[in-house]
């Protein structure tokens, strides 16, 4: 089965709202898109449509959190992490407040709207903020966990959510852990460390390369901050080559986070970075964009082959 991540998020948020009356939800006139509307229809008294005013929305959430509320803040990823950034930094993170940010249309998932609406540097910004936890769900089950975990855990959270439909990856009873990654496909020759959509693209690439006799391990690094250092170092040691894969600029996101761990430990192995190569994107159907910007299964496979060549 496959489910739209935003739909799952909206439904889980509504379930959580049923269980916990302190949960409040804010949106910036995109609640029909982010699916926070599902919560708003059920709990109109705890839903605040702030209009198209992201800075006001995040700062309002900061204030709400000081009265015991647990605000979930929603809009397109790109607007949340740019227009909402000053309040995220100066109030939410500096104040270590209990605010949850849901970036609804990550990467190029708002494909046809073009470069202005794509979020390809959000992880760089959010990852650099002290006190922030950054989770990237890769299927319905991990979306449910990330949303529930953010609701019950004190502090600033950024959930990198997609407009898109992702195939199911985890069993409903899978035990996720903040600060951990998951080996979702084992292999010996190289490890692809991916997040979000790219976990699925990596699995596709691995399945193709298996036919050529290449054994690829795939890690879902659903917790980008804090990150699973132990697992990264183990994969570097056991497979001798790393490919990072993300729907994000190759600068500042998952690839940077993984490289930092390898460099700190002096454990560098040949590493390739699959991602958007420091360029602005464009309008097109999603699949065409993923192909053109090198973040589909072919892009991951190319990265794997380069890494393997360097490993030899």
């Amino acid at each position: 089965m496959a489910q739209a991540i935003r739909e799952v998020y909206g439904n889980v948020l509504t379930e959580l709202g049923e269980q916990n009356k302190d949960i409040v939800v804010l949106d910036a006139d995109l609640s029909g898109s982010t699916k926070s509307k599902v919560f708003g229809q059920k709990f109109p008294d705890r839903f605040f449509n702030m209009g198209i005013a992201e800075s006001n929305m995040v700062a309002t959430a900061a204030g709400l959190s000081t009265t015991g509320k647990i605000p979930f803040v929603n809009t397109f990823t790109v607007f949340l992490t740019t227009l909402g950034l000053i309040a995220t930094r100066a109030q939410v993170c500096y104040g270590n407040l209990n605010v949850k940010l849901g970036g609804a249309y990550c990467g190029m998932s708002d494909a046809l709207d073009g470069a202005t609406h794509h979020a390809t540097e959000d992880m760089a910004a959010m990852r650099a903020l002290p006190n922030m936890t950054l989770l990237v769900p890769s299927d319905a089950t991990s979306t449910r966990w990330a949303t529930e975990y953010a609701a019950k855990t004190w502090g600033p959270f950024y959930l990198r959510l997609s407009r898109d439909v992702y195939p199911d990856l985890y069993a409903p009873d899978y035990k996720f852990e903040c600060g951990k990654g998951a080996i979702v496909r084992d292999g010996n020759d190289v490890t692809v460390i991916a997040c979000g959509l790219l976990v699925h693209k990596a699995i596709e690439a691995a399945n193709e390369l298996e036919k050529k006799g290449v054994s690829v391990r795939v890690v879902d690094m659903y917790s980008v901050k804090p990150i699973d250092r132990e697992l990264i170092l183990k994969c570097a040691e056991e497979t001798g080559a790393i490919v990072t894969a993300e729907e994000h600029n190759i600068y500042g996101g998952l690839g940077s986070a993984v490289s930092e761990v390898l460099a700190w430990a002096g454990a560098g192995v040949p590493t390739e970075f699959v991602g958007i190569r420091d360029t602005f994107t464009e309008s097109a159907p999603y699949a065409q964009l993923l192909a053109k910007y090198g973040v589909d299964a072919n892009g991951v496979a190319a990265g794997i082959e380069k890494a393997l060549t360097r490993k030899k």
Partner: protein
Amino acid sequence: MPLTNERAEELAEQCRQFRVDVLTAIHGAQSGHPGGSLSVCEILTLLYQELMNVDAKRPDDPDRDRLVLCKGHAAPMLYRNLIEKGFLPADSMATLRKLDSQLQGHPSIHTPGVEMPSGPLGIGLSAAQGMALGLKLNGSPARVYAVLGDGELNEGAVWEAAMSAPKFGLDNLTAIVDWNKVQLDGTTDEIMPIRDLPAKWSAFGWNVVRCDGHDLQALCSAVELARATKGVPTVIIADTIKGKGVSFMEGKAAWHGKAISDEDYAKAMAELGGDR
């Protein structure tokens, strides 16, 4: 209730002493913002020492009143008021802007009594709005005060909150604009003319009260009007003088953020009766 004459005199004396102590701390740090700290003196002192329900012994009381110093650069005057309320030790003023101090250059939430970090302008009113929304949901009688600068009104985000607070009917929220008419680079008329400020707030749906921001009785009446107003938030537009109380600082943009020399410090102390 209006202030008794005796109480008004006590508060006026406190304001004089707070001006002395704030300038002493800024002089000691050789850095800080004298002008805006002096202009906001009566506003903060009246709220903290007379009107607001805050108690250092119950800092987490869910029904405490809240104040967000949106113009965070006036932090020394906030700190002096928090000291008077018992949130901070009296000798902490001397640590302003120094390493490991509780008194940061701009307010940090980790400082006892501070409700929200502030300094970056434009987002404080929104945070105060969030507090007011949460308190209403909780059925709390607490009130929220947001103290804004006039240079801060250049920030567009202020007007996002100006638009949204009336939508939510936040009559537990009072914004107070410290309208001293001077910002860092010059007068507000030179840098970014604000034009008809009361009309702007009024057009957004706020109850607008204008008063002399250095007149404790007038400020007290304005806050009481705000408390009595139902259904909409109130903004108090307080006419103030940047650098109020020190003749050579008054109305001068140069004193927005400037270290105070020993000579100027001595002159200021003489004017304020600092050795009293």
